[in-house]
């Protein structure tokens, strides 16, 4: 079976779809030849990027998250994009969800530690997070 070089999935930015992103990425990574540990790291980092969209990007409005998986020479790159309100990666927002206080900074910290390269481009028209994991 030929290995797909690129795949794109789009889901509503709702909590129940973040697991579906991990599942879709897992299928892609298995075909791309990423090892188990690296695949787990990348799935966790991508899931954090999606969770950030769910928690912060659209406030109380509905929106989508688009996840693009691409196989590069020696690496897998994933971009996670939204058209939400954006944020300053150097001063991430804090927001309470139910009873617990969750800092977006923890999600960013996890992402940085789990991938080989992390780029965040964010502005008034949305955010694009690029995560690269070496094969």
């Amino acid at each position, binding site marked *: 079976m030929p290995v797909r070089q690129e795949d794109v999935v789009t*889901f509503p930015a709702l*909590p*129940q*779809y*973040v*697991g*579906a992103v*991990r*599942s879709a990425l897992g299928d892609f990574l298995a075909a791309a030849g990423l090892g188990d*540990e690296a695949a*787990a*790291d990348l*799935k*966790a980092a991508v*899931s*954090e990027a*999606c*969770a950030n969209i*769910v*928690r912060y990007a659209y406030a109380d409005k509905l929106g989508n998250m688009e996840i693009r998986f691409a196989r590069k020479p020696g690496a897998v790159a994933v971009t996670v994009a939204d058209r939400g309100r954006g944020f300053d990666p150097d001063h991430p927002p804090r927001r309470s*969800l*139910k*009873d*617990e*206080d*969750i*800092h977006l900074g*923890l*999600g960013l*910290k*996890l992402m940085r*530690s*789990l991938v080989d390269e992390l780029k965040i481009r964010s502005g008034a028209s949305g955010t694009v997070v690029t995560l690269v994991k070496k094969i």
Partner: protein
Amino acid sequence: MGLDLKIKSRKIQDIPVLDLEGEIDVYTYPILNDALLALIKDGHATITVNMENVSYIDSTGLGVLANSLNKIAGKKGELRVICNQPNLLKIFTVSGLLNRNLKIFPGETEAFQTAR
């Protein structure tokens, strides 16, 4: 679309144990949050969270554990987490929670040896 998180509750040496199965993320975290808050409300300061059958935890789940740690702080209790999956241990290490009163044990035996 979401994946499940199932929780069963029991006690060992009068310490509550939550056996988790599934994934803890931005969708499933309220299930864990509710279970922990109920135990704390009942007066339990030491709680064991068995994550042997958990395949993933995100920053939302870590936030739930951090919140529980805040609530039991000063009550001479602790949060014991049973976990030996390398991918989860890495997330716990990066999170900084291990510097607080959260203790990780590789199995149930080790988690309850400290209680004696």
